[in-house]
């Protein structure tokens, strides 16, 4: 298919050249990689083009843009489908925003774009950013000192974020938002020293977060709901086999939600129907796993009924919002219908598992089973709300979660511009020679049932 497109492009280019009245400046036409079959659809940076942006602009679907070591002070915008953009060395191919440029690489509406094996640092907004796409892949990426999100997939479906490292973002190291079903996987990611290790607003539906590490953030994994994005609420995220620890880090950059969530490992804030299973969670000042509401002030809409839970995002976007006069001052997104099973949780300041809200939490449909824990709030939560069979009928007020602790003043945000510089990270195998692999085969299948509780790291 790329060959056909290339032929068409060559013919078109020839026709334009013949028909041209004035002759434009050459725009990438000098690149040996473009239109030259000797490179087989590979465009080299800087040999063929000095900048990544120029290479992207010259590329056609299916091309590989191969970037040599260097510091590239640019903000790259991608609007061409099915590109593979790859650095030859993850730690030496560096996009640097100089704390002035907004996004490292932003892919807007271009499907199937894969970004591999490079680092983005010092951007005021996002490191690697896909928006409005079908098919995306982030592999062997590093981000640090980024003003909003490290790796950011918004309003995008069919994605894979893998073998990547993010740190020093005040919002979240990794974010997937506004999609249902997302059909996306986060696998083998390390996220640390961020406001939130993971944030996912109004996302879910075949969305897996597996085999990853979230540590030294203010809060670890935080799926959340709110009407400040479309497609609310967050629902049906599967969180399995992750290491989540020491998310009490007081010196990270942090937005207000990260300050509010500080001291919690896995925190579905107003999340619905999530599966949280076989994670190892330890060393948190408040809860290991906390099911909490998200109170949204000045909301744009009310909470939709549970009967809308299966509504795809594509349909929800077109729904009218409630009459503003009927929207309460504070809209409360409650955590409901979540399943918390088989996790190993220890060293939690308030409770290994806690649930609290402004309403009677006994009716929210969450369940808890087979967790290796020593405390819950309310007391004996697995008996009150088991995942199989009827609850004990016990007292939900005994040992109830003290929500005031969550509202206590937290250390203020650190400066993302001075957050830690990470060590070198693992390179993608065979980066120089591997063929282009656009994100047309994502997400890959994950055998969730085969994932076991990860071991505790020896140094933690």
């Amino acid at each position, binding site marked *: 298919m790329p060959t056909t497109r290339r032929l068409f492009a060559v013919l078109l280019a020839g026709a334009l050249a013949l028909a041209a009245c004035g002759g434009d400046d050459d725009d990438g036409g000098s690149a040996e990689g473009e239109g030259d079959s000797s490179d087989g659809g590979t465009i080299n940076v800087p040999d063929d083009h000095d900048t990544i942006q120029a290479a992207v602009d010259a590329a056609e679907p299916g091309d590989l843009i191969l970037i040599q070591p260097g510091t590239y002070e640019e903000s790259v*915008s991608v*609007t061409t489908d099915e590109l593979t953009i790859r650095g030859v060395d993850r730690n030496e191919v560096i996009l640097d925003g100089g704390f002035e440029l*907004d*996004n490292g690489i932003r892919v*807007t*509406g271009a499907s199937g774009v894969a970004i591999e094996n490079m680092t983005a640092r010092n951007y005021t*907004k996002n490191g690697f950013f896909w*928006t*409005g796409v079908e098919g995306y892949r982030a592999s062997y990426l590093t981000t640090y000192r980024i003003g*909003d999100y490290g790796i950011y997939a*918004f*309003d995008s479906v069919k994605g894979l974020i893998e073998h990547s490292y993010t740190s020093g973002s005040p919002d979240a190291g990794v974010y997937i*938002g*506004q999609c249902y079903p997302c059909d996306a996987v986060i696998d083998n990611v390390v996220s640390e020293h961020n406001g939130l290790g993971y944030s996912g*607003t109004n996302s879910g539906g075949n969305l897996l977060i597996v085999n990853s590490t979230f540590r030294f953030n203010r809060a670890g994994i935080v799926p959340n709901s*709110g*009407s*400040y*994005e*479309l497609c609310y609420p967050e629902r049906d995220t599967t969180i399995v086999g992750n290491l989540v620890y020491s998310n009490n880090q007081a010196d990270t950059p942090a*937005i207000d*939600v990260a300050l509010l969530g500080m001291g919690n490992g896995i925190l579905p804030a107003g999340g619905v129907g999530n599966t949280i299973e076989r994670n190892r969670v330890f060393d948190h000042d408040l809860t290991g796993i906390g099911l909490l509401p998200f109170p949204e002030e*000045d909301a*744009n809409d009310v909470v939709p009924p549970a009967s809308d839970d299966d509504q795809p995002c594509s349909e929800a976007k077109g729904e*009218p*919002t409630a009459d503003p006069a009927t929207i309460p001052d504070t809209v409360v997104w409650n955590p409901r219908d979540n399943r918390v099973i088989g996790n190993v949780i220890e060293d939690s300041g308030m409770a290994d598992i806690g649930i609290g809200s402004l309403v009677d939490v006994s009716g929210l449909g969450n369940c808890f089973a087979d967790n290796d824990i020593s405390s819950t709030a309310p007391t004996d939560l697995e008996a009150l709300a088991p995942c199989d069979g009827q609850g004990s009928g016990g007292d939900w007020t005994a040992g109830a979660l003290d929500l005031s602790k969550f509202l206590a003043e937290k250390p203020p945000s650190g400066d993302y511009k001075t957050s830690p510089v990470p060590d070198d990270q693992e390179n993608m195998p065979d980066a120089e020679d591997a063929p282009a692999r656009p994100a047309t085969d994502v997400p890959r299948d994950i055998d969730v049932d085969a994932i076991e509780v990860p071991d505790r790291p020896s140094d933690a």
Partner: protein
Amino acid sequence: MKRTIVSLLGLVLAAGSLAACGGDDDSAVAASGLSTSNGSSDESVPDDVVVIDTDPAEVTALDNSFRPENIEVPAGTEVVWTNKGRNEHNVLHVDGDDWGVEVEDFQPGASYSHTFDEAGVYRYYCSIHGTTDAGMIGTIVVSG
């Protein structure tokens, strides 16, 4: 506030009946008595437009979309954008006219307004979360 969804089909049918055999992308604009904001003839009315008959007309900037994305207002209407997201956004005119607001003056909770006195199709975007034609974009259709 009264809001009415107007389908592109409706606009196109109206355009067809008024402009007869025109058949190009500008038919809807021409039928509506509109001109494009930059005087060119290469812009078209978007797929769906919300007609707003109140002044001011309100547009909300969420993360990361404008709602309603496309609106139609009478000439002389003040349009007010309010950032009700949690992220920073801006409002930039695609054709470089002298309206719009930068990030510094459009933080979460902030508002910006502009009065559109002349009929036309005014396209805009957030440069952080979109390009001029994809991502976080919007259109103001000003009727004469």
